């Protein structure tokens, strides 16, 4: 990260953000708009994601589909957010 930056105090780069949310409840939105909410177990450089007790949300509403553990392939991931 660059040494010269006026507001380095509140900076979080992606890898710090990811290691901070391992184990907590996250929502993963795919390119097509479907979201999966569950506890983040692990994530890698391709943004492949493993979560458990996962629920599927479509257009913001729960679709009723639930998965125990889930592996999501990274190329479909638009964003991952902390719930």
């Amino acid at each position, binding site marked *: 990260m660059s040494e010269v930056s006026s507001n380095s105090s509140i900076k979080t780069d992606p890898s710090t953000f990811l290691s901070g949310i391992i184990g907590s409840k996250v929502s993963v939105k*795919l390119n*097509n*708009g*479907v979201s999966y909410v569950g506890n983040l177990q692990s994530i890698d450089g391709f943004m492949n994601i493993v979560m458990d007790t996962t629920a*599927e949300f*479509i*257009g913001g509403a729960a*679709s009723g*589909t639930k998965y125990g553990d889930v592996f999501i392939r990274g190329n479909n991931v638009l964003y991952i957010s902390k719930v």
Partner: protein
Amino acid sequence: MSAPNSRSISDGSSNAEDLYLEAYAFTTAAALVGSVDRKIFLLLRDGRNLFGVLRTFDQFANLVLQDTTERIYLDAEGSKSLEKPARFGETYRGVFMVRGENVVMMGAVDIDHEDEHLEVLQNIPFEAAEAELKAIQRERVQAEKQKTKSLLSRGLINDFTKSDLY
């Protein structure tokens, strides 16, 4: 129980050249080199059918075709589908350099039989065929957009991209 090994290396008898080509048997180049200077047909991701002589290629399967003809197949008059070809239109296109990732498939054309399937079809002017094809493709894109929306409401992804019309 290992699968029967297809190619046992005859020890010593095959000369250096075979061993050399053997080492590159399983590469993109090896799959294409056999069709060089031969007439091939090419199906592109946008649905185009090209027929020409393959002159050169590289390891990304970028291809150069010479004396290329583009041919459009259409169903019977008025039908919107492309399932039962009844008409075709073609035009001369000259030299083509096609980027590998746009190729769906490439086949070596058997020159003595290549026109047999055309005898059954009605030849129509290329411009007319192209206009009709563009209209059919536009309709298909609209229908697929609708399908994408309705599948999405059930969390399913319709694997359709506008540029893939093969």
